[in-house]
């Protein structure tokens, strides 16, 4: 059967069509991921906590708000480089937060970047002006002074910014307590307030309400007032972040990482693992099978014994052992997977070749004087091709699942993001027990869909290879078992 014929046959089946459609979609998506994300995303960004510092932690995806009803707090990042108001030496940077949600923000931070001064550091003050006209000073962040040996102008927070959490700390507690006492004549005990600071900032005290606080909706002005000594002093930007109660397409993990990004970047990596491992494994398996079956004699004996030994090795324990001892680089993991997965195909192909070798097809090639190489490549290989292809398709999900299993045990390559690792960190953090389903369900679903894509293709290949294989489970069964 020609390759085109095989494809036609494949697409004639339901599973083949579904699998092909999914494969195209997955490839397109991973192409997008490769273009949109830097190649060192895993090492440089995913495992760098400061990248994710502005994100709310362990919050569900935005779209869950549609299901649960109620207005959720959108994640809001407000940033400005220009002061709204300048009076004398004081510049006021003002940003407006429209608060209309049924839940308070998960946190409130301010971040100041690009400070440059010539004599004394600027004095900073964070003020919140509330919809009812009240206001409160939440923090007075300190810009470090000159160090010995340093010459003016002094640059501060050029790279990372000065970040201050406004929803924690004794200072905020005291400030809010005073606000409530002065403006609403309500004496809220500090221990009550301490755990509900984010809520208190956007609430008025009200006895009977939960935590004794009622949400105050409306426009909040978040201000940073900076007083400079020298007119040449500068302040680059001010950013207020009001943590959302939901975030992104897939929510965040306990470090605030955007799981949607992790899931997306995991796709090309999963496909890479599946495709390279299966191509390498089937190439080795098929070549050895053909050589072993056709050459016979000592070559056959050596390959056969080797295949026998490798085929009977318990894959997962050994894989764990090797990754643990030798290293967990992704290419190493793929290498180990390949090293232990070729024998199934070798044994299958060899038995097919033995049948062909004694058949008239090969004899008719020998009679015309064809070389061994010609016979193996032009007459024998095409006959095994459908099986080899089916095995290749079949092995891809096996490799993906095996890698996921290793990652889940904490043996994944730390420099890349894989779905197994996301699951592992979720499981280790206790996401399962805390009910943070968005952290543990989607990566698994992603694994299943990717593996299923190949499984559907394998199922669609069935009419092509007509599996009257009596050797029990298909050859890839064992390898697959490893990741399960």
């Amino acid at each position, binding site marked *: 059967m020609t390759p085109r014929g095989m494809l036609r046959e494949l697409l004639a089946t*339901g*599973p083949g069509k579904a699998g092909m459609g999914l494969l195209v979609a997955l490839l397109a998506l991973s192409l997008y991921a490769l273009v949109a994300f830097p190649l060192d995303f895993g090492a440089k960004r995913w495992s760098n906590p400061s990248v994710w510092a502005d994100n709310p932690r362990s919050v569900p995806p935005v779209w869950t708000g549609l299901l649960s009803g109620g207005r959720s707090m959108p994640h809001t990042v407000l940033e400005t480089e220009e002061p709204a108001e300048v009076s004398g030496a004081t510049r006021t940077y003002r940003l407006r937060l429209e608060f209309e949600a049924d839940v308070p923000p998960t946190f409130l931070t301010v971040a100041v970047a690009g400070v440059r001064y010539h004599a004394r550091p600027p004095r900073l003050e964070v003020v919140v002006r509330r919809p009812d006209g009240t206001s409160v000073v939440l923090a007075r962040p300190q810009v470090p002074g000159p160090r010995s040996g340093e010459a003016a102008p002094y640059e501060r927070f050029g790279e990372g910014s000065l970040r201050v959490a406004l929803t924690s700390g004794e200072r905020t507690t005291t400030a809010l307590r005073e606000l409530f006492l002065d403006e609403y004549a309500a004496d809220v005990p500090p221990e009550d307030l301490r755990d509900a600071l984010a809520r208190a900032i956007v609430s008025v005290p009200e006895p009977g309400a939960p935590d004794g606080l009622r949400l105050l909706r409306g426009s909040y002005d978040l201000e940073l007032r900076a007083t400079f000594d020298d007119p040449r002093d500068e302040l680059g930007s001010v950013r207020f972040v009001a943590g959302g109660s939901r975030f992104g397409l897939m929510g965040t993990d306990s470090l605030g990482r955007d799981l949607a990004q992790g899931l997306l970047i995991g796709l090309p990596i999963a496909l890479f693992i599946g495709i390279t491992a299966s191509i390498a494994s089937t190439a080795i398996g098929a070549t050895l099978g053909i050589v072993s079956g056709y050459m016979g004699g000592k070559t056959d004996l050596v390959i056969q*014994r080797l295949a*026998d*030994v490798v085929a*009977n*090795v*318990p*894959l*997962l*324990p*050994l894989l*764990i*052992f*090797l990754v*643990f*001892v*030798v*290293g967990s680089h992704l290419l190493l993991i793929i290498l180990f997977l390949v090293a232990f997965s070729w024998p199934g195909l070798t044994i299958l192909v060899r038995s097919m070749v033995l049948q062909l070798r004694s058949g008239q097809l090969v004899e008719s090639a020998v009679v015309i004087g064809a070389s061994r190489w010609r016979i193996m490549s032009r007459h024998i290989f095409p006959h095994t091709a459908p099986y080899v292809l089916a095995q290749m398709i079949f092995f891809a*999900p096996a490799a993906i*699942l095996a890698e*996921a*299993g290793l990652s*889940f*045990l*904490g*043996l994944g390559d730390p420099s890349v993001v894989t779905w197994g690792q996301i*699951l592992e960190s979720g*499981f280790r953090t206790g996401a*399962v*027990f805390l*009910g943070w*389903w968005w952290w*543990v*369900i989607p990566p*698994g679903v992603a*694994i*299943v*869909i990717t*593996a*299923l894509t*190949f*499984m*559907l293709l*394998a*199922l669609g290949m069935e009419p092509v290879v007509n*599996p*009257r294989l*009596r*050797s*029990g*489970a*298909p050859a890839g*069964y*064992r390898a*697959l*078992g*490893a*990741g*399960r």
Partner: protein
Amino acid sequence: MSFVRPLAVRAVTLIGVLLAVLVLLVVSLGATGFSDRMLRAVVGEEVRGLRTALAETIRDPVELERAVEAQRGELERFYGLDRSWYTRLPDTVLRVITLDLGEARTLKSSSGSRRVSDIILERLPNTALLITTALVITAAIGLVVGSTMAARAGTKLDRALSYFAATSFAIPAWWLGILMILLFAFQLRLLPAGGMYSTPPPEAGLLRFLDLLWHAVLPVFSLVLVTVGPYLYSVRTMTLSVAQEDHVMVARAKGLPEGVVVRRHILRVAAPPIVTGLILGLTSSLGGSILIETVFNWRGMGRLYFDAVAGTPDEAVIVALTFVFTLLYVAARWLLEVLYVLLDPRVRYT
């Protein structure tokens, strides 16, 4: 006897596997310097202890240093650190083969023993319980559903089940376990999320056993759900291919009742490969137990392996367990050969 030869050949091969795995273990430990590092750590620890002990008697710091160094040298010789790793290889291999598995560094058995063999023997039955239960259920469902599916090949139901098989294939059991915990343990609060016994565990006896079963429900269910799909599909395929053979047509033409035809002329003939598939499933879930026991905190060999790898690495336990896994695997494989020979009179020469 005609079947002695194939069985002997397989036995030799499988013993070869055992040796090959063992050598691979020891070589990779040695060649990567892993073994040296571990041993040095052991020596360092012992020397530290010795120093404190010697300091009691030897006051002079120079003298003390010399004594300590002498002790260290002796220890290093004792552990073979003065030689390169490959000269230690035969020793190590021989020790493991004789099942002298050594002592664990951090892990202990529940009775407090540090002997690796004690620790492993304590865990073995737990794993066996989990895997064999799952296997029996898978086999029962696979045989019944698979063979009925073969009779209805091409129908909607058959197609639906083939999709199920593909999906079941594509799901990692451990992730399914996580889903189960989320759903049944936390959402519905029907079943325990992990562990083997309630706290406090019930008194010994029937109640204790029932409690164990109660805790086994989710892990077993997860294992079954992922293995049953591919298994019933392979049963279906194998039965179907036998069902198309001429002798089945002859059996029908003879006027045998359909039940006899299916049992004696289809299933009986398909039995050898069906059993093969089952034991292959057993051997793969042996490896899979590492993951599923980790998820469900089931105190079996798999969880032990995870603990040995994840916490402070415990070399002795890792080597010993990998070896024991291989041993069990090889034993299961050989059992498979024996069954095959018993089931199929056409013993093939390999």
